[in-house]
């Protein structure tokens, strides 16, 4: 079993914050393709289109018959054939995390692989492989116990690859919405120490305010994503203490483009969701980055919840989808920036949320609780992209398969 994580002690103000490093980031294009799938929580290997054998490390051609390779989900079982504990490393990141355990895993899928080891597994063990992302956003094979072990998630080596909310202090940007409240509650339930819950207009009450603000662990804060000054003020106040930022801002309005679109809605949506995301990132990303490897208390993730229709556009919600598209684009760039500092950037993709702005949309719709679950799962798994619900999953699957077709379908 793993030692249970203990609540981090208060930081000694005289101790220099540990500078964040990331594991070696130089990878091949094929490895980067693996990362893209790892980010979705898939366990994939390259499989030959001709001879159907799986291969690893990442190749560009099959080593058995020189056929073309494609990425496929693979059985995730493996056996650890050998293990070692690295006690000396010339890499800054690993040097900081020594001792570090790795092993040689014989994957059920066929190939041998060098893998990171969970504390509860060792030589001879059957394990369950997970394809994680390391702190530089690159793929990492991680051997987990085959069956759940006590405090499994608290394994210090595993926690390097996740952004588990346990004992972490988290900013949720918009407590005025049902989604924001559901996310805050789920994070507390998952062990978060504190949730700073944003309120764009503390002078105005909001539904559910009394209940959520009374919840233990909730600290209401003034935060308006459309107000640069309020973000600067909050970052100045909390920047050094927030470990995870979850942006739940949403401005969904019905409307077309040439017909029935509302320019003010578009502007408001862009200001809140797009410019607001950039304001939030500018306020908090530097502070998060500065604490990306600060032991138990390290900053871990920046989460953004956006409509899946940012990928495709959507008839009837043109402006909202455009804002989501811009938001996903900003987030992709932010992900690249944050990969250099070791902060995971997570996209939670949703279908139409079951709220007042989607009253005319037939079900299935996304319940705020589903979004909250997805946020927690992504953080616990260290996943980069997660679909909160069936609609998002469906659109993403179709989009991965044929983007242009899906764009047409969603805009009919």
């Amino acid at each position: 079993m793993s030692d249970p994580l203990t609540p981090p002690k208060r930081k000694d103000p005289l101790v220099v914050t540990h500078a964040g490093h990331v594991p070696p980031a130089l990878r091949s294009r094929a490895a980067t393709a693996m990362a893209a799938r790892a980010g979705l929580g898939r366990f994939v290997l390259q499989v030959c289109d001709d001879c159907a054998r799986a291969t690893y490390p990442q190749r560009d051609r099959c080593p058995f018959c020189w056929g073309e390779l494609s990425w496929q989900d693979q059985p995730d079982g493996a056996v650890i054939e050998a293990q070692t504990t690295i006690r000396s490393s010339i890499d800054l990141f690993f040097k900081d995390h020594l001792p570090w355990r790795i092993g040689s895993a014989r994957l059920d899928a066929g190939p041998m692989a060098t893998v990171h080891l969970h504390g509860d597994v060792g030589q001879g063990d059957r394990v369950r492989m997970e394809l994680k992302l390391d702190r530089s956003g690159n793929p990492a094979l991680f051997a987990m116990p085959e069956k759940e072990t006590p405090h499994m998630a608290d394994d210090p080596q595993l926690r390097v690859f996740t952004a588990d909310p346990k004992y972490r202090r988290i900013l949720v940007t918009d407590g005025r919405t049902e989604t924001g409240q559901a996310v805050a509650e789920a994070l507390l339930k998952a062990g978060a120490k504190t949730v700073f819950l944003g309120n764009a207009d503390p002078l105005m009450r909001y539904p559910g305010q009394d209940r959520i603000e009374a919840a233990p662990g909730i600290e209401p804060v003034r935060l308006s994503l459309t107000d640069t000054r309020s973000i600067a003020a909050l970052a100045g106040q909390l920047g050094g203490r927030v470990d995870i930022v979850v942006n739940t801002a949403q401005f969904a309005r019905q409307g077309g483009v040439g017909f029935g679109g509302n320019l003010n809605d578009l502007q408001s949506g862009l200001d809140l969701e797009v410019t607001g995301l950039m304001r939030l990132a500018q306020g908090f990303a530097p502070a998060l980055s500065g604490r990306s490897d600060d032991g138990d208390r390290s900053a871990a993730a920046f989460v953004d919840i956006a409509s899946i229709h940012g990928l495709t556009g959507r008839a009837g919600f043109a402006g909202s989808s455009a804002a989501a598209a811009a938001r996903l684009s900003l987030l992709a760039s932010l992900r690249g920036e944050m990969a250099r500092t070791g902060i995971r950037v997570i996209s939670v993709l949703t279908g139409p949320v079951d709220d007042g702005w989607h009253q005319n949309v037939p079900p299935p719709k996304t319940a705020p609780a589903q979004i909250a679950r997805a946020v927690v799962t992504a953080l616990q798994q260290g996943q980069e992209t997660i679909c909160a619900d069936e609609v998002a999953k469906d659109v993403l699957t179709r989009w991965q398969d044929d983007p242009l077709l899906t764009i047409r379908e969603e805009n009919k």
Partner: protein
Amino acid sequence: MSKTVLADLAVALASGQVRVIDLTNTLSPDFPVIVLPAEFGQCAPFRMEKLSRYDADGPAWYWNNISMNEHTGTHFDAPAHWVTGKDLPSNTVDAIPAQDFVAPAVVIDISAESAADADFVLTREFLENWETEHGTIPPDHWIALRTDWYKRVGTPEYLNLLEDGAHSPGPDAGAVEFLVHDRKCVGLAVETVGTDAGQASTFNPPLPAHSILHGNGRFGLQCLTNLDKLPTFGAIIVACPLKIEGGSGSPLRVVALVEGETA
């Protein structure tokens, strides 16, 4: 009026005999704006993005881009703001003669009543009683409603928004009709976020201040401060909205000129 009036005024300003009172709230992102039901277009609050501040984006200068609604912060309502005034001549801020932006004010103090009842309604009867006590409201004056509401700025009690809507004092139709038709007022100047009472959408007719004032070519001034610093009679209000082409209103700096020691 002799040709020395302005010279006299200059002397009076310099000597403090005439003082300038700022009736304006600071434009800031924190200042609340009117809230309409969510399905309507919403009034944009004040927002400011720095362009440069003696930095790489402008080494020797400091300036900001700002954005807001025409009705954000301390602001002026032109007759075109309301449907009742939509066909009047010169009903937008750019078309209103500049002459109309400077006018004397009469201050009606309903602060005690408002403190006692946030939904206090100003009636014709109240005004007539007031005149009995203070004298007749002269024509061509701003009617400044002192509620001391400005002291609530920065608290939820300013908008005072409960589940059934906002609660703040304002006139009923009779009062507005009286002020417009019988007293020929320039407009209504208030400290609350609107010239109408918080609950005025439930009045019959609804929103009488907006409806009657603008329908008769009169103006509104909202979100004022310091009305308690003005004399009942004798202050002159200077309220020049931005000259926005076809604008329905405008944020503006409102000042009052008051004489002597009067506080």
